[in-house]
Structures are given as structure tokens and as C-alpha cells.
């Protein structure tokens, strides 16, 4: 029981190309914030259509026979998936220097990724996952709509990876005048994760004086927290401005709050996140 109530840095491991980077980033977070690390592999079941036939008749005891056939198919599939997952989890564990992390555990869970996240949400401190999972490697759209909705409902920090691991030295904190952004700022100030990073506090606004005041106030908080930082007030279209700034300064990661309203709301998890991840393969941390 004790262990279950603990909060974990949770890394979603699968066979996708991003999987190794997911493990590396998760290990880095766990190490830096001194939190236990959990590697989770989900077993997504198919529809068990191997024994389909269209003979359309009802034979005596067909119900029991069909349950038996379907259970046997599913058992075989589950065993296969579990074995494959174990290999993946072992590989992931080997990558991790467990001595620097309080605790490392691996877990397998039946169901799709979104079902798993709903079931395990109480254990999550930070969720680390790749932009595209194994099954969606070829898809252009990135995160599936189903997962996106689950993630929206999940009120936990989410770290999305799309590229090889590089220990972040710098980060961009997208900031505006919303509660979500202020909360994100608060979390950044409190977390040990950013102690060794250069924080770029960035705000996009046409109103120069108000923007400057906002940055000044936020910058003061960062200073109080002892974080090395610089601020930038950008103009123009928020998406492009942020993207451009991130590329220009070659920042190692981006941190955003959950913007409940305002201009950045639609950018929060939609096209902007995706664009950013694709443009520079640097991870994004969504805080709520």
C-alpha cells in the first residue's frame, strides 16, 4: 500500500524509436528531483479476430466454445505481449544508472495507453512519453486524439519527448498573464529540476509596457528562487515568435503552463506543441 501511494516519475516505454530517449529523460528527471522512477509498458489488446468465421449458424454450446476459443487466443496474445514488454523494460533498465535514483520499478498494465493513464494517474508525479508510440510511428498527426483527450484530463505535468536525449542546459518558459502560467512559474521556482539551467522567460505581447511589467514581476520570482534567467518580450504571432526564439537560442527544452484561457489556449496541446517538437526535436514540459 505504501508503495502505491508514492508518486513516481512515470516513463511510458514501448518499442518506438523515441522510447530510449523517454527512458533517458525520465531517468534524468528522477535523478534531479530525487523521485522514484517507474517504467510502464502497456499491453494493448487486439480484437481477437483470428478465429472469425461467417458460417452464421448456432451450434450446441457455442457460447461456451466461443468463450473458450477467444480466451485461448487472448491468453496466447497476452503472454506474447508480456514477454515482449519484459524485454523492452529490461533494456530500459539497463540504460539507467539506478544508483542515483531513489527507486526504479517497472510495471506492465493491460489496456490502451489512455486507459492505463487513467488507472495509474494517482501514482504519477511527472509523466514522460514519446510523441509517437509504436503503433503510430508512421502517422503525421503525432499524438492520437484519444490520448490527447486523456492527457488533457490528466492534471499532472507531462514531458513529451521527440528526439535523442541531451541533458538540458537551458529552457524556454512561455509566460503570459493567466493563472495557468503563474502556476507553471510557481512550479518552476519550486522544483530542483531547473537549478542548473538558464531559464529564458518569454512573453508574446503587442503591449510593450504591460508585457515588460509582467516579465519584471515573473523574473523577480525566478530570481528569488535562485534561478539564473533572462527575459524576452516578443511581438507578432505567438506561435511563430516562440518557435523562432526557441530555435534562435537553441534552447534544450520548453516549459508551458496549462493556459485555461487567452491566446495560447489553442496552442497548448495542439499544433503548436507538435510544431515545436518537430522543428527542433527538443522536449516540451506541460505543467498544470
Amino acid at each position: 500500500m505504501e508503495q502505491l501511494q508514492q508518486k513516481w516519475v512515470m516513463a511510458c516505454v514501448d518499442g518506438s524509436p523515441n522510447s530510449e530517449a523517454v527512458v533517458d529523460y525520465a531517468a534524468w528527471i528522477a535523478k534531479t528531483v530525487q523521485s522514484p522512477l517507474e517504467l510502464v509498458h502497456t499491453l494493448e489488446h487486439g480484437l481477437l479476430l483470428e478465429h472469425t468465421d461467417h458460417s452464421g449458424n448456432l451450434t450446441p454450446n457455442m457460447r461456451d466454445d466461443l468463450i473458450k476459443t477467444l480466451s485461448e487466443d487472448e491468453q496466447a496474445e497476452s503472454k506474447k505481449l508480456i514477454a515482449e514488454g519484459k524485454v523492452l523494460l529490461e533494456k530500459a533498465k539497463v540504460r539507467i544508472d539506478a544508483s542515483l535514483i531513489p527507486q526504479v520499478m517497472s510495471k506492465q498494465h493491460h489496456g490502451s495507453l489512455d486507459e492505463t493513464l487513467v488507472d495509474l494517474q494517482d501514482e504519477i508525479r511527472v509523466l514522460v512519453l514519446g510523441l509517437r508510440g509504436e503503433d503510430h510511428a508512421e502517422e503525421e498527426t503525432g499524438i492520437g486524439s484519444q490520448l490527447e483527450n486523456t492527457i488533457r484530463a490528466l492534471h499532472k505535468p507531462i514531458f513529451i519527448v521527440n528526439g535523442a536525449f541531451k541533458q538540458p542546459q537551458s529552457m524556454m518558459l512561455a509566460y503570459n498573464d493567466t493563472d495557468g502560467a503563474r502556476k507553471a512559474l510557481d512550479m518552476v521556482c519550486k522544483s530542483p529540476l531547473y537549478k542548473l539551467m538558464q531559464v529564458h522567460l518569454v512573453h508574446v505581447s503587442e503591449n510593450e509596457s504591460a508585457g515588460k511589467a509582467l516579465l519584471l514581476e515573473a523574473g523577480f520570482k525566478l530570481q528569488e528562487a535562485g534561478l539564473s534567467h533572462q527575459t524576452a518580450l516578443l511581438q507578432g504571432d505567438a506561435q511563430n515568435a516562440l518557435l523562432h526564439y526557441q530555435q534562435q537560442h537553441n534552447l534544450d527544452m520548453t516549459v508551458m503552463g496549462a493556459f485555461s484561457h487567452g491566446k495560447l489556449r489553442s496552442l497548448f496541446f495542439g499544433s503548436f506543441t507538435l510544431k515545436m517538437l518537430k522543428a527542433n526535436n527538443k522536449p516540451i514540459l506541460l505543467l498544470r
Partner: protein
Amino acid sequence: MLLAQNKKDWFGNIRGDILAGIVVALALIPEAIAFSIIAGVDPKVGLYASFAIAVIIAITGGRPGMISAATAATAVLMVTLVKEHGLEYLLAASILAGVLQILAGYLNLHTLISFISRSVMIGFLNALAILIFIAQLPELTNVTWHVYALTAFGLMIIYLFPYVPKIGKLIPSPLVTILVLTAIVLAMGIDVRTIGDMGALPDTLPIFLWPDVPLNLETLWIILPYSAAIAVVGLLESLMTAQVLDEMTDTDSDKKRECKGQGVANIGSGLMGGMAGCAMIGQSIINVKSGGRGRLSTFTAGILLLIMVVFISDWLAVIPMAALVAVMIMVSIGTFNWKSIPEMRTNPKSATVVMLATVIVTLWTHNLAFGVLTGVVLAALFMAAKLQQFMAVEKSFDDATNTRTYTVVGQVFFNSTEKFVGYFDFKEAVDRVIIDVHRAHFWDISAVYALDKVVLKLRREGAEVEVIGLNEASETLVDKYAVHNDPAKIAKVMGGH
């Protein structure tokens, strides 16, 4: 979240669902016609019903992949209504049944399904199978030998055709039976009854029409008993079928939504000139076997059924009844739980009695609701009789103080109070009596009353009576425990029994 789940339910298995939908549609046609005949209405009533219910439940139901349409279970309830008042009253009764089912959904009555034990469920299915079989008998009595030969040949095709290499698993064998028997009858010019003799077939798409009945209390009192029976039986079969499908596909379903969905489907059916129906256990199993898993399979089945029926109704008319009877015997054999017969020897007697009582009462009343009610009541009584055995009273006597101590252990409730009182010796003359109940459980006020009676009686005999541990014992008295799923609290109340 909801939309995403919806998308998966609808389009998660497009190819499998459409193919299975075709198989199911082909099997639904003979069944819909057969069930219309059971209810005593034109075949088109059952066919319109099957279309309307399948299409609507695909959208409104709580169990993706389950097939609902006109069914035998509901058809047998309508016979007298149709006979005495006619079709329009049946349509009105279907609509009212739907309203009741929606109400049942809002009242969370689906949770009552947990009172239906496995024995009752098997009894339900066996009774349903027998009802379907009995309904075929009129077609098999006072007929020429041709009918028997055709029916036997039809059954042979149904069971053997799937073993034909390659095509056996591609073409539904009931369809082959219908085609072959029709061809034989037409080619040889055999004079047997055909579906066309049974009444009107659909020739147009269904239209929305309010049933032509007077909207007054008199009508309500006529249809209400039928509607209530249809609503109950429909929900029973639907929820049981949903459970079977849950188990089969290892997925969950939304039972509350299913109740309301069945209601909407029946209202829609009544408005489109169809009779009420519910989920069909046989068809749902065929759907799963054929690879149907999503809502699209049910939807496809409904749409295809209508298209086929409207455009080939002339051809439907020449299908010999023998082909239909063969298909329905297959459904009957497939619905019956054959294992339940050898299991009668190995199962506890009480289980067999519950199962048989469900079957017998159903066949007696032609109402599955009464059968299930009998089964449930019997199962509860057997349960009470079993628990009654878990109670004992130990006696001890202390000579020095002239004190008799009774230590009660176990379950005290209405059924065990007589036994409880019987343990006490009222003729014994002692100074003090201690009744220690801290390891007993008082389940109801009968138990408390019995204890009061014992105490009073002992006092009348001149003893000082002391009851120990009544607080612990009566923790089980309240109707709702705040223990829920807390193992620690349950362990405390149950005191390690």
C-alpha cells in the same frame, strides 16, 4: 473522451463489423418473420421492428456489438394483446414499454441484475429455447411428409455446410438452407406453406406513424400490463446478453445506457410500425463469431435487413416455412444450455431446483419475467436456508454463582430465529443467565425481537438476565454499511467469521 470512445466503438473494426453485419442481417430475416408469427402479426411488423431496433440500438445502446431486434422472449408476451385488441394496441404497447425501460434506466434498475444467479440465467435460456421450439410445432403438425423431409434436410445443411472446405466458413449456412429449400420447392412444385401465406411482407420503407388508438386511460389500462411485461423481459434478456458479450470479448459495457437505449429503440420501433424487441443472445453470439465487435456491426445488420427485405419481398414470399422452421430449430438448439443437463447430477440440488423452476414457470405462464422471479425468490430462500445453518449456541454453567451462560456464534436472522430460541432452556431454574452475543450477527429486526423474547421469558422464570456484546452483534443490523470496499471495516464488522 466520450467522442474518442465513440469513434472506437463505431469505426474500430470496420471490415469485421460490416462482414459480420451481413451475416447477422441474413440470419435476422427468418427470425424476425418467425417471431412475427409467434406474436400473431404480419411478418412485416417483425421485419420493421428488427430494422428499427437494430439501427437505433447501434446508436443508443450500451454494449457495442450486441444485436437487438424482434425477439421470441417479447413476442410470446404479445399474443393475447394482438388477439383481443389488434396490431395498433401492440404498437402503442411497444412505445409504452420503451418509456418504462427508459424510466428503469434512470432509476438504476439495471443493478438488480446482480440478483439473478447463474442457475436462473441458465433456466431463462433453456425456457427461451423451449419456447422457440414450441412455437415451431404448429408448422410441424398436420402437414405432409414433404415438410418433415425439407426441415430435416434444412437442418442437415445448417450443421454440415460449414464443414465444406473454403466456402463453408464464408457463406452463412442458414442462408444456404433457405436458398436450397426454396429452389427445391419451386423446381419440384411441392405444395407446402410459404412465408407469403403468413401475412403481409414489407413493400415500402417504414414510415413514422402514431398508433391509431384512443389516447385515454382505458387504453393505458389495456396496454400497461403487456408493456410492463415486455419492458421487464426485454431488459432481462438484454442485460444478460450484455453480460455474456462482456465475458466473451473481455470488455465492459454501460448497462444503464443499455436500459435507456432499449427504451428508445422500442419507442422507435412502435412508431415505425414494429413490435417491441430486445437483445438476442443467439444473434449476438453469431455476431461475435463472425468478427463483429463494434456498433457498426449492429447498424449494418439493421440497414441491410431493411434493404434486402424491401427489395426482395416478392422472393421472400416463396420461401417455404420448412426452411424457416429449420433455422428456428437451430436457434432453439443453440440457445439451450446442453451442459445444464449432465450438470444436474453434479450441481447442488438447490441449483437444479432453481433452474427447473425458472423453466417450468416460464413455460406455464409464457412469461419469462415470472420464471425469473420464481427463480430469484427460490435462490434467495435457498441462500437463507443455507446461512441459517451457520449459527450455534454454546452453553456453560458456573456452579458457584448458579449462572448459566449462553454463547451465541454465527448468523441470526429471520430464518434462524426459531432455531436460536430453541437453544435456550426455559425450564431450568437458575439465578443468573448471561447471553454472550458478541460473536453473533443480528441481521434484521426478527433477530432482535427473538433475543428480546428470550430475555423476557428467562426473566419470567425468575432469572437475572444479562446480554453481553449486543453492540457488536447488531452492527450488521443497519441496511447500509459504510464499509463499502474497506477490508479493515468489513473484517471488524464480521469479526473474523
